[in-house]
C-alpha cells in the first residue's frame, strides 16, 4: 500500500481506498497560502497524529498547515476523499480551491468554530494526474489536535464501499446496544425484583450513546441542531458515567467479592467527573482526562482481578463474563495493531463493547432462567411433599369440623357429633406367643393396617388414631356402617395370610364399641397440631375394649352402639348379652353385648 513520503504519495495503478498516512508536509503556527506548492514546506511530520506528539512537543492548542501531494491519478476514475473528524476545525483546499471544511479554523481561540464530522467528498472530474491537498487546521478546543484515523482517498466507489462497511459495523453495534438496552429495561420493569437487567440496560444505552459521539458522529446526524459541543461533552460524559455504572453493576453482581469502599470511591469519582463533563468548562475537564484515565485503567485491572477471583470460585456467570472481557481486550489489541499498521483492517472496539454487553446479557438471562427453573423445580418438589404429607392430615376428620381447606383449620376448632367409636386391638401372635421384638411387631402391624384401611374407607369410617397394637375408628352414627365395617375387618383379617419371616402369623382382633355424643376438635399448639375426640363416650368405649382385651377375638359393644347400628337386621351375627358393667368412677351402668359371627 502506498504511503505518504515527504509530503507526497504516488497512487499509480493503485485502485483501492487507502489511508493518507505517513509524513505530511507540515507548518506549525501558520496558515500557509492555499496556492502554495509542496516546495514551500520545509518540515514533514506524521499524520494522522496530534502535533503535541512531534519531537518539539508543540502545545496541543494552536494551529498549523498540513499538505500532501497525490500523484499518479487516473483521469478516467472518479476519486473521493473521506475525512474523519479533525480536531478541532479545518478547511481543506485542493489545488488552491476551498474543497471542504469542518467548522472554521483560526489562529486564535476566540475565532475558532470547532466542529467534527465524517464526510465523503467526491472530487470533481478533471484531466489532471495529480492534486495538491492543503489543510488549515486549528485546535483550541480538544485535548489533542489532528485526527486519529487517516484521511482516506481512492476511487469513489471503493472509498464509498469502505465507508459503508465501517458505518455499517458502527450502526450494527449501535443498534445492538440500543435494542439490548430496550429489551433489558423492559425485562426489568416486568420483573422488578432483580435489578441487574436495569443496570445492563442503562450501561448499554450509555455505550450506544457513546458510539454516536465518535467515529462517524451519528449524534450530529441524528440531531443536527444539537451542536458540536454537546456531542463532545456527551462523549466524555458517557465514558465517566459508564465506569461508575459498571462498577456498581459489578458490585451488585458479586457483592462479597468487591469492596464497598473501592466501589464507592470509583463510582463517586466517576460521577463527579461525569458531572464536570456536562456542566464544567471544556478546557477544565479535558485536562482532568488523564487522571481519570488512570482511575479507569486501575479499575479495569481491579475488575479483571475480581473476574479471575470469580472464576476461581466458580461463581455464576463468571466464565461468560470473562469471555466477554477477553473478546473486548482482543478487539482492543486488534485496533492497536491496526492503528500501528501492523495488520490491515478496520477498528473493531465497538464490537468488543457489544460483545461484553452480549456476554453480560447472556449471563443475566441465564441467571433469570436458572432462577425460574429452580423455582419451578422447588414448586414441583413442594407439591410432591405436600401430597405425601397430606396423608398425615386426617382430612375426613376435618370434614366434620366443617373445614375442607387445610390452611383454614385453626387450633381449637371443634364440633359436636353423634359418633360410633371403635377401638380395635390387634394381638399379633407368632406360634401362639405375642411378638417380643417391637420392630417385627411394628412391621406386622403395618401390614394389617394396610389391609384393613380400604375396608374402613369404603364404610365411611375415619381412622382417628393409630396406637401401638391398635387403631381408633370413628363412624358417623347416622351412617350405621360401624358394625358392618368391623365384621368386614374381622373377615378380611381372617381371610388374609400375614407372614413374619415366612412364619404365618395369627392375628387376634378384639374390639370395644360404643356410640355417643363426642366433641371433635383440634389440639396442640401452633407448631404441632393434632385432632382429638373428647368425650365420655370415648372413655366408655375404651373401658369396653379393656374388657374385650381379656379374651381373644372378642367383639364387645354397648347397647347404644347396637341400637344406633340397627343390630336386629344383622343376619350373620349372633348377639349375646355379656353383662352389665358399672364403669369405674361413675354410677351409671352400661349393658354390654358380645357379637360373634356365625
Amino acid at each position, binding site marked *: 500500500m502506498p504511503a505518504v513520503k515527504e509530503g507526497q504519495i504516488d497512487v499509480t495503478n493503485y485502485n483501492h481506498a487507502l489511508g493518507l498516512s505517513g509524513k505530511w508536509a507540515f507548518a506549525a503556527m501558520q496558515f500557509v497560502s492555499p496556492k502554495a506548492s509542496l516546495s514551500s514546506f520545509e518540515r514533514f511530520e506524521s499524520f494522522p497524529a496530534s502535533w503535541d506528539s512531534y519531537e518539539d512537543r508543540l502545545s496541543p492548542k494552536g494551529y498549523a498547515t498540513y499538505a500532501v501531494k497525490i500523484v499518479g491519478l487516473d483521469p478516467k476514475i472518479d476519486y473521493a476523499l473521506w475525512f474523519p473528524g479533525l480536531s478541532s476545525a479545518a478547511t481543506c483546499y485542493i489545488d488552491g480551491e476551498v474543497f471542504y471544511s469542518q467548522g472554521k479554523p483560526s489562529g486564535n481561540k476566540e475565532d475558532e468554530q470547532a466542529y467534527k464530522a465524517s464526510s465523503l467528498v467526491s472530487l470533481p472530474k478533471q484531466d489532471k494526474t495529480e492534486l495538491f491537498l492543503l489543510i488549515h487546521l486549528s485546535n483550541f478546543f480538544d485535548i489533542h489536535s489532528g485526527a486519529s484515523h487517516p484521511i482516506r482517498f481512492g476511487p469513489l466507489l471503493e472509498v464509498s464501499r469502505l465507508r459503508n*462497511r465501517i458505518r455499517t459495523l458502527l450502526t450494527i453495534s449501535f*443498534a445492538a446496544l440500543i435494542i439490548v438496552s430496550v429489551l433489558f429495561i*423492559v425485562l426489568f420493569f416486568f420483573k422488578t425484583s432483580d435489578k441487574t437487567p436495569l443496570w445492563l440496560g442503562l450501561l448499554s444505552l450509555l455505550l450506544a450513546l457513546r458510539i454516536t459521539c465518535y467515529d462517524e458522529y451519528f449524534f450530529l446526524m441524528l440531531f443536527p441542531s444539537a451542536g458540536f459541543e454537546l456531542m463532545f461533552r456527551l462523549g466524555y460524559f458517557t465514558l465517566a458515567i459508564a465506569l461508575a455504572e459498571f462498577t456498581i453493576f459489578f458490585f451488585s453482581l458479586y457483592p462479597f467479592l468487591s469492596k464497598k469502599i473501592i466501589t464507592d470511591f470509583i463510582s463517586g469519582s466517576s460521577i463527579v467527573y461525569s458531572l464536570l463533563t456536562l456542566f464544567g468548562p471544556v478546557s477544565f475537564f479535558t485536562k482532568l482526562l488523564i487522571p481519570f484515565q488512570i482511575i479507569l485503567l486501575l479499575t479495569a485491572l481491579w475488575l479483571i482481578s475480581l473476574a479471575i477471583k470469580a472464576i476461581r470460585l466458580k461463581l455464576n456467570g463468571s466464565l461468560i463474563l470473562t469471555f466477554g472481557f477477553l473478546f473486548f481486550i482482543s478487539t482492543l489489541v486488534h485496533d492497536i495493531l491496526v492503528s500501528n499498521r501492523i495488520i490491515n483492517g478496520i477498528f473493531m472496539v465497538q464490537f468488543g463493547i457489544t460483545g461484553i454487553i452480549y456476554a453480560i446479557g*447472556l449471563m443475566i438471562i441465564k441467571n433469570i432462567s*436458572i432462577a425460574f427453573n429452580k423455582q419451578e423445580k422447588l414448586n414441583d418438589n413442594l407439591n410432591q411433599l405436600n401430597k405425601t*404429607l397430606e396423608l398425615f392430615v386426617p382430612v375426613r376428620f376435618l370434614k366434620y369440623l366443617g373445614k375442607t381447606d387445610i390452611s383454614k383449620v385453626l387450633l381449637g376448632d371443634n364440633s359436636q357429633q353423634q359418633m360410633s367409636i371403635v377401638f380395635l386391638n390387634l394381638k399379633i401372635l407368632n406360634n401362639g406367643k405375642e411378638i417380643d421384638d417391637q420392630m417385627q411387631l*411394628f412391621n406386622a402391624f403395618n401390614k394389617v393396617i394396610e389391609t384393613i384401611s380400604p375396608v374402613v374407607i369404603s364404610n365411611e369410617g375415619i381412622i382417628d388414631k393409630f396406637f401401638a397394637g391398635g387403631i381408633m375408628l370413628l363412624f358417623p352414627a347416622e351412617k350405621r356402617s360401624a358394625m358392618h365395617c368391623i365384621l368386614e375387618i374381622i373377615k378380611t383379617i381372617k381371610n388374609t395370610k400375614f407372614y413374619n419371616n415366612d412364619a404365618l402369623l395369627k392375628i387376634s382382633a378384639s374390639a370395644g364399641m360404643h356410640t355417643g355424643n363426642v366433641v371433635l*376438635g383440634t389440639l396442640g*399448639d401452633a407448631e404441632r397440631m393434632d385432632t382429638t375426640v373428647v368425650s365420655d363416650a370415648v372413655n366408655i368405649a375404651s373401658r369396653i375394649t379393656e374388657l374385650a382385651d381379656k379374651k381373644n377375638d372378642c367383639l364387645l359393644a354397648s347397647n347404644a352402639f347396637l341400637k344406633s347400628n340397627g343390630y336386629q337386621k344383622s343376619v350373620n351375627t349372633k348377639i349375646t348379652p355379656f353383662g352389665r358393667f358399672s364403669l369405674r368412677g361413675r354410677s351409671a351402668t352400661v349393658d354390654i353385648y358380645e357379637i360373634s359371627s356365625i
Partner: protein
Amino acid sequence: MKLKNFIKWFSVALAFACVIFILLIQFRANPLNNKNITNSIKAIDGCVNLNTSKYSLFKIQGSWYFAWKAFYNNIEEFSTSNFIDFPGAWTSKVETSTNGWASWGLTVKGLKANKTYALSLGQTLSACRIIINRETVYSIGSPGKSREQEKPKWGAPIILFKSDSQGRADLILQISNWHDREGGSNTPLLIGSPDSLFKAQDSQKFIDSFAFSALLTMTFFFGTLYLFRKKDFYFLWFAALCLIVGIRAYCYDTFTLLDIFPFLPWALYFRIGYLTFPFGILVFLGFLNSIYPNLLPKKIFFILSAPFFLYSIIICVFPAQISAKLLTSMQVYSVIPVIWGIVIIIKACLQKIPGCWWLLFGFSVATVFFIIDILISMWIFNGASTIHIGMIICLMCIALMVIENYSASFLKTSLFRTELETLNNSIMRFVPQKILNLLGHTTLSELRPGDSAEYEMAVMFSDIRSFTTLAEKMDSNSVISFLNSYYALIVPIVRSNGGIIVKYAGDGFTALFPDGAESAMKSASEIHKAINRHNKSHIDKNIIAGIGIDFGPVVLGVVGSQDRMDAVAFSDCTATAAFFDAQSKKFKVKTIINTALLRGLKDPQKWLLRPIDTIIYNNQDHFLFEVFSENQEKQKEAKLKTLGKYERALFAWQTEDYKKAKQLFYELYIENPDDILTKYYLKKTGLAK
C-alpha cells in the same frame, strides 16, 4: 401498585419511543423524504428535463426508449416509437418471455454543463450495464445474450457522471435476464448531486443496518432465553423469526450484505435472499402454533406450511431461474397463511388471551407500513421504503408480548409457590416432624408407611386427674379451649426439654424423650410447677396432673396406608408409662417412675424420691418410686422429714419384719397423717398380720 404499573408502562413506552424516534429521525434525514430536496419527475418518450434548479435530487419514472434483443451504445440507435415504462419489466411490452435481453434509453436534459452528477439504480434483474454519453460507466454483473454469457449480480451502486457541455446526458441501460424472475427494474432512477445521493444512501443503509442488528440482537436475546428454558419453545420460533426478517432487511434494497461480504457469490446471495421468504412464513406459522397451540391445530399448521417447505428445498436445490419463476405464485399463495395467521390473532384477542393485543398491534403496524410501501412504489407517496421500520416495530411489539408472557409465568410460579408454602405450613402442623427426623429422613417426600427406627428413650404419659368430671360441666367449645390452654402451658415445657409429644388423647398425652431420663424428669418437674403456678391464679379451676415415666427401647414408625399415615411409637413403655400414671392416681402422688428410669439418672440424689412398692404389670415386676419434689410445701417437708424413718419401715416390711414395720408405719402415720403411702402400708401390715 397503580403507580408502579404506570411507571412500568411509561418506561416500556419510553424505551420503545427511543427506538422509533431514532428510526424516524433517520427517515426524515433522508433527502429522498424531503420534498424541498427531492423532486419526482416524469420521463416522457425517452426524455426528461431536470431544469428545476430548486431541487438537488430527482426521482425519475416514466417512459424510456426500448429496444428488445439489442444492446445499444448510442441513444440515436433507438427507434423513436418504441417506449417502455421504467421502473418496470419488459414483459409489459414483450409478451414472449421473461428471459432475454434489451436496452433502455433516456435522454436527461436540463443539467448544468460539465458538472459531476450522481445516479443511483435499484435492483435491476438480472444483469445491467450502464452507459452514459456512449461510455460504459458501470456494470452490475455482466449482461449477455444467452444464459451462458450473462453474469448475474445484485447491487444498487451510486455512479458519478459528468454532464456534457449542453447539460445533457444520454443514459442507456443494457439489461439482460436469464436468471431471475423478470427483466427490468422495480425502483425509480435517482439523479442528483453526489452529496445528496450519498446522504440518502447513508440514511437508508443506517436504517437497514439498524434493523438487521436490532433483529439479530433480538434473536440473540430470545435464543438465549430458549437455550436456558427449553420448555418455552416459542422463544426459539420468535428468535428465528427475528433472524429471518433481519437477514431479509440486509438482502434487498441497498444490498448492505455486500458491504460486509463483498465477495459473496451471486448464486448464494440469491438463495439467501429468496429463502427468507418461505422461511419467514414457516417460522411465523410455527410461532403462532407454539403460542396458540389450541387455535392453530398441528394438522392445519402442516398443511399450510408444506408448500413453503417444498419451495425452500426448490430454492436450495434447483437453478435460480426455477425458484424465481415460482416466486409470484408462492407470493399469491402466501396470502392464505397470512390471512389464517391474522384470523388466529383476532381469535386470540376475542378469547382475551394475555398478550394477544400486542400481537395484533404489531401486525397492524406491519400491515400499515406494508401498504405505505406499496403506495410509495405506486407513486402515490413520495419517499424511501419504510418496510424495515414497520418490521422493527412489529417484532418489538411481539418481543414485548413474549417478555410479558415470560414474566407473567414467572410471577405465576412465584404465586403458586406462596400458595404451596401456605399449604405446606398448614400441613406441617399435623406432621410430627421431630419423629420423622428421628426416622433419619432427609426429604419428607420419601416417607412411606413401614419406615421405622429403634431408640432407647424415656416415655412419659400424663393426664389430668378426673378430667371427665371436669369436662361434664363444660360445653364442647370450652372443653376444647380448656384443653388447648392447658397444652399451651405444657407443650413448650416438653419441647424445651427435647421431648416429643407423639399423641394427644383428650386430656392425656404421650411424650418421648430421646435425650434420656434426665430431661423427662426435668420436664415432669417443670410441668407440675407450671400447673401449681396456674392453680394459684385459677383457684376455681384447679388441675392436678399425673405423670408416669418409663425407660426402654422404642420403635418409631410410620403406620398407615396410602390414604392416611401417622407416626406411632411402639414400645412396652408406652403402656407401662400409662399404667404408672394410673398408679399415681391410686397413690395420690404426682410423678411415678421405676428403677429403669432411676438407672438413667445421672444424679439420683438431686431428686426427692421415695420408694413405693413392687407392682406387677404385664407379667413384669416394676419397682416404683414417687417423685415428691413438686408436692405442696407442707407435704414435701413432712415427707422429707420422715424419709429416713419411711425407708427403715419399708426395709422392715421387705425383710418381713412386719412388727417393726407396723410400728414404724404407725409412727409415720402419727407424724404425717396425710401420707397415702403410710396408710397403704399400714393397711398392708394389718393384713400381713
